[in-house]
């Protein structure tokens, strides 16, 4: 199917009005009712972050540590420790040496799953207790404001006429941008030219400088550049439109089934007692409901999504299958 730009814009406007309400509904997460735990930590807790200081995961961990202290959820000090390197491989290898120690927790995002799938890590999600998922990040397709592509359809048409002629900038193989590229190629039957930059910031710079045609950052990373008229958002790669971006149609609405969300959560070492796990589940559920955490999510453009216990394990297992399929298709999954 193909849309004219004018028609797409019109449809987009109508859908924006309709989808505002359901978009709200999807963020309403069930708060589980958990019994109190009889165990609690008796020495300082180490909060391991798989990325270096100042990045998204680091701020996620530091915000949570702050809330845990301020609300008395954990009455011992919670010390954030950065163990960056190897896209998470260093941090999770370290965590795997902490079996049975309830005084260590760690942050986990998509690299927790994608790095082991690529065979770069000796441990995988099955070696840990997947304590909780707290939020998800969305992705938006942006082009330079001076670009001729008004919609994703325009861009796909151009790519169809000129295989490999449309450049998409991303941060590394197997990253969110790479997955979006792959899904879009598959959904539209096109061939894009994927250029790997070092990080999301560099890809945005390349987009502004006209060195690539498309990038897929988080909405929060692109918000100001879009608002200032430097970039144009042409598609949201989420299942439904986002509350804060009612005018940006999803890729699905434009006829390309490309969705991607990446979670942020917390894991525990294996071999803990039920009581110890219950304690941490309680902390996560209470933390999720604080105003500070809600403000953090809003400031960083993250969508709240709470899953603990069995639900969390199931979510992580599903995500693992999803990534495995895509990375295998990209030819970078380790063969078994």
């Amino acid at each position, binding site marked *: 199917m193909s849309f004219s730009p004018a028609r797409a814009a019109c449809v987009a406007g109508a859908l924006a009005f309709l989808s505002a309400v359901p978009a709200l509904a999807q963020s309403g997460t069930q708060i589980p009712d958990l019994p109190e735990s009889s165990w609690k930590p008796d020495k300082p807790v180490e909060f391991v972050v798989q990325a270096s200081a100042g990045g998204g995961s680091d701020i996620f961990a530091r915000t949570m540590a702050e809330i845990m202290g301020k609300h008395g959820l954990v009455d011992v000090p919670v010390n954030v420790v950065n163990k960056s390197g190897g896209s998470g491989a260093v941090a999770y290898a370290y965590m795997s040496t902490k079996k049975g120690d309830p005084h260590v927790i760690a942050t986990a995002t998509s690299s927790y799953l994608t790095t082991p799938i690529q065979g*770069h890590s000796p441990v995988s999600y099955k070696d840990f207790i997947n304590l909780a998922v707290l939020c998800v990040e969305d992705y938006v397709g942006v082009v330079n404001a001076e670009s001729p592509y008004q919609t994703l359809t325009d861009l796909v048409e151009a790519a169809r006429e000129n295989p490999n002629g449309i450049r998409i900038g991303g941060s590394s193989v197997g990253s969110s941008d790479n997955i979006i590229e792959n899904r879009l190629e598959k959904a539209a039957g096109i061939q894009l030219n994927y*250029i790997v930059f070092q990080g999301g*910031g560099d890809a945005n710079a390349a987009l502004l400088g006209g060195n690539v045609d498309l990038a897929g950052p988080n909405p929060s990373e692109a918000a100001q*550049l879009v608002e200032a008229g430097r970039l144009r958002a042409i598609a949201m790669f989420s299942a439904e439109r986002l509350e804060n971006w009612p005018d940006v149609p999803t890729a699905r609405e434009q006829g390309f089934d490309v969705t991607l969300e990446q979670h942020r959560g917390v894991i525990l070492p294996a071999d803990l007692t039920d009581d110890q796990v219950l304690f941490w589940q309680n902390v996560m559920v209470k933390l999720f409901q604080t105003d500070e955490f809600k403000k953090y999510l809003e400031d960083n453009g993250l969508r709240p999504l709470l899953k603990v216990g069995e639900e969390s394990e199931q979510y992580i297992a599903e995500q693992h299958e999803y990534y495995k399929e895509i990375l295998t298709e990209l030819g970078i999954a380790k063969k078994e």
Partner: protein
Amino acid sequence: MEFGDLLLGFSIAFTPTNLLFAFVGVLLGTIIGALPGIGPSAGVAVLLPVTFGMPPVTAMIMLAGIYYGAMYGGTITSVLINTPGESASVMTTLDGYQMALRGRAGAALGMAAIGSFIAGTISVVLLMIAAPPLADFAVTFGPPEYFALMVLGLTTLASLTGDSMLKGLLMAVVGLILGTIGIDLMLGAPRFTFDNVHLLDGLDFLPVAVGLFAIGELLYNLYRPVRAEPIKAKLSGLLPTRQDWRDARGGVARGTAIGFFVGMLPGAGATIASFLAYATEKRVSKRPEKFGTGTIEGVAAPESANNAASTGALIPLMALGIPGSGTTAVMLGALTLYGMQPGPLLMSTHPDVFWGLVASMYIGNVMLLILNLPLAPVFASILRVPYSILIPIIIGVALIGVYSFENSLFNVGVAVVFGGIGFVMRLYGYPPAPLVLALVLGPMLERALRQSLQMSLGSPEIFVTRPVSAVILAIAAAAVILPLVAWTRTRLAARALAS
């Protein structure tokens, strides 16, 4: 820019609270920069929670103070004990440490402070008057331009080779190969990682540099004491002289220009800026043979450059919300934490933050000059401690500094191994500087080459059809060909004379 904006800025920066936190920032920055390992990006991140609850402008004033303060501080350990406090100070060890061995540590530190002050202040002026257009120019730098810049960097490596050109080039090749260790960004293939998770991201520059320079030097001293025992010069004689200033001012000017330009490019940074500044200085100098033996301009140029670069890196951050370095990436995170959206609208939606920060940077640079100039002789007096007592102190601080860089014992091991390698290299006259610099340039060079050819679908024309890339490559070609022509001419003239 309007004059009213700057007045607003100064009215904000001159409030007692903001003055106090500017001072706290530059003081902490000096300390953090001086400690090996903990660099400005880790320092800013560690102290980030302290700023919660402050007004955003105060927090940014303090964090920026840490950033450019660290550039002043990094000089201290480089000059005094041959241990670069952060990666942008490696070039300073080459001549700074030689000056210290000759009893001129105070002059080196003093000139570094003056050069940093001048570079910092000029860069703030540029940041103030031209941030948006400069940022727009900086983002047009794509892979072909970075490739050209790295090629230019490689051509200047020849100027760092010391006694034997061949050995220097060989060490550069070793550095380039070490730079390929880790997961290849383009295809995700591991290279030379030997199934070690710590090698997936490659060798970090800092443990290698601390190993080769600081630990290698200490081991060589254990092998054969080289250092003249306690330096007995008078404190008053330790500051830069009028002659020093005459020698260094050209280096300060060129260092500032190069540093600012390279610093504002999101893919380059202060380390490369200081490297290019040093190499340029050696090339234009009338006494290039003296470089590496303790020339004042060999200290002034890279120190001015790294300071200018730290201010230049704020340009894409403040004007576009794009971080140009590890430290500005942390500051970007900080802005979000304070509830601001970094980006092109920041200057109009939060003028107080932008102009308050700019004004505070003028004040902060003055503070740093006042702080560092009188302290230079005091720091230099550390060298009066017998060297045999300094050895355990330096080795302890260097090892823990390397650990704290990424909380990694593996990095400490890397530093120890490269300490041993550095000792052997020193013993047989292989220079370490080309190795560490090739280690920095190599990954960027390779990435830019592969990105460029991927962009052009394999056509190498992309390097010459883009004007900026073509111009930089032409400069690089000239940098190789002109000395060769001059050399051939002197040889021919000598032969003509002989016959």
